[in-house]
Every structure is written in structure tokens, then in C-alpha cells.
């Protein structure tokens, strides 16, 4: 773009006066988003750290508790989130190419997939509730160590696993709920035609957030569901 910054300020209403041009503005907001994601990495990192230490200490009990989770639902939910990440990048791409209708379709698909993930999560949590696997006074886990069928599981250690399971999947699901809210807002604005090839920063940055939440689940799936499945 050859226009002088002042001429461009009038040219694009989305350009704030403290940026030289649209590219600088976009890069600055992208950097800010990544800084926020860095704090999110450390936030989830604390929980992952607690998880790793307890898993190291109580590996046999963690394996038994992990085997009570539904591996099919976990794998399906992983696939659902990966598909939603694809629809997000396709929505951003549609904005870059100035295709409003595609943007709307991909954002709507993202919302459907995000809600599907939360629906599956609700089914999983409901069955955990019925099985008394929610940590608390009514907690009860019947089972034996995977490689030693004669050895019963330590109730306290199993309870620590489920505390971590609900804390981690719960915080992840909260991020999903926030993501669904953000993407509803994006869908509304995409419908109105707010995002153009020159200005689609909210779409790009919300996409970064959505992918981050996807990556957290990419680690949660093997760490929570696949501890000791071997036969």
C-alpha cells in the first residue's frame, strides 16, 4: 500500500491513529494475543504439573481410574475439536479472501462443533456423577490395579485423579464456553459484513484462542484417558 499513513487513516475506518498502517496494527494485536496465550499456557501448566507429580506417585491407581473413562467419547471429542479448528482456519481464510458467506458458514459450523464437544462432555460428567466418581463425601471407586487384578485401588489416590480430571476438563470446558460466546459474537459480525481482507483481527485473534484450547485438549486426551490401557 503506497498511501501515506494519514491518507490511510481516512481510507480504512478500522485503523487506529497510533498505528502507521493496517499491517502494523494487525501485528501488534497478534503479539498481544500471543502474550495472553503465554499466560494461559502457564495457567494450564500449573495443573499439568500437579497432574504429572501425582501420576508419578500413584501411577497404578491413576491407571485404574483412567480406565474407567470412556475412551470412545474422549477420542470422538478430540476429533470434534480438530474439525472445529479446521472450520476456524477456513473462516479466517474466507475473511482474508473477502468471502462473507463462507465466513458465516464456517463460523456457524465452528459453533455447532464447539457445542457438540460440550454436549459429549456433559454426557461423560453425568455418568461420572452416577458412578459416584465425583470427589467428595460420596466418592466411591470400585476397581483393581490394571496389571494386578488382586490389588484393590486406593480410594484416596483415585479421588486425587478425579479431582485433577474435573479441574482440568472443567477449566478446559469453561474455556470452550467462553469460546462459544466469542464465536457467537464473531458470527453476528461476519453476518453483518464487518470483516474484510483489510480488517479481520477479531477473527484471527479469536482463532488463536480457539486453537490454543484445542491444543490443551490434544494433551488432555492421552494424559487423562490413555494412562494404562495396555493389555
Amino acid at each position, binding site marked *: 500500500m503506497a498511501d501515506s499513513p494519514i491518507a490511510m487513516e481516512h481510507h480504512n475506518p478500522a485503523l487506529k491513529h497510533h498505528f502507521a498502517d*493496517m499491517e502494523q496494527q494487525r501485528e501488534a494485536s497478534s503479539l498481544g494475543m500471543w502474550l495472553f496465550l503465554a499466560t494461559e499456557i502457564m495457567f494450564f501448566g500449573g495443573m499439568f504439573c500437579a497432574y504429572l507429580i501425582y501420576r508419578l506417585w500413584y501411577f497404578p491407581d491413576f491407571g485404574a481410574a483412567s480406565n474407567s473413562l470412556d475412551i470412545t467419547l474422549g477420542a470422538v471429542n478430540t476429533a470434534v475439536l480438530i474439525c472445529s479448528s479446521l472450520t476456524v482456519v477456513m473462516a479466517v481464510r474466507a475473511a482474508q479472501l473477502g468471502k462473507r458467506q463462507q465466513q458465516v458458514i464456517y463460523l456457524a459450523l465452528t459453533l455447532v462443533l464447539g457445542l457438540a464437544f460440550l454436549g459429549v462432555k456433559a454426557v461423560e460428567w453425568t455418568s461420572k456423577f452416577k458412578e459416584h466418581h465425583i470427589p467428595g463425601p460420596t466418592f466411591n471407586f470400585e476397581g483393581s490395579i490394571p496389571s494386578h487384578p488382586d490389588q484393590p485401588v486406593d480410594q484416596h489416590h483415585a479421588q486425587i485423579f478425579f479431582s485433577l480430571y474435573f479441574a482440568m476438563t472443567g477449566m478446559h470446558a469453561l474455556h470452550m464456553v467462553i469460546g462459544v460466546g466469542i464465536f457467537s459474537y464473531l458470527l453476528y459480525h461476519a453476518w453483518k459484513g464487518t470483516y474484510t481482507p483489510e480488517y479481520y483481527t477479531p477473527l484471527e485473534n479469536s482463532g488463536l484462542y480457539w486453537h490454543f484450547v484445542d491444543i490443551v485438549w490434544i494433551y488432555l486426551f492421552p494424559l487423562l484417558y490413555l494412562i494404562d490401557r*495396555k493389555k
Partner: protein
Amino acid sequence: MSEHVVSAKTYIAVWLTLLVLTGVTAGVAFINLGPFNTIVALVIATFKALLVVLIFMHVKYTSEKMVKVVVVSAVFFLLLLLGLSLADYTTRLL
């Protein structure tokens, strides 16, 4: 346009790879590899995360070097947290 537009083909290839790797990690978990079960699961997860960060999150294409600095330092501090904590707990003689 100043921003790099990635081809739909690339996105779909990454998506398919991520789906296949999800199946692989679930399948491998049932095979007895001893202590390597955990290592294989973490290697696959990290490879998937790398694909998402580099392609879907456009870190591979960004011209802003500060973004790369932030990503690398975030991972560095996460590994510092996990690495030093585990170095402590795995070497205690209790």
C-alpha cells in the same frame, strides 16, 4: 495483500494428519510398550500441537519476529516449571 493466505489444501492435509494421529495415539495405547507408552503418547501429542501452532496459528508464516519470541519463551518457561518440579520429585529418596 500483506498477510499470507494459506491454501485450503494445506489446511485439509493438516486436519487429516491430526485426525489420523488421534486414531494412532488411541490405538497404540492398547499395545504394551512398557514405559514407552507414555513417551509415544507425549511425542504424538507434541507433534499435533506443533502442527496446530505452526500452520493453523500461522506462526510459520508470521513476519513478526516478536510473536516467535513469545511462543518460544512461553514453552521454555513451561518446560522449566515441569522439568525442575519433576527433577525434584523423581529424585527424592522418600
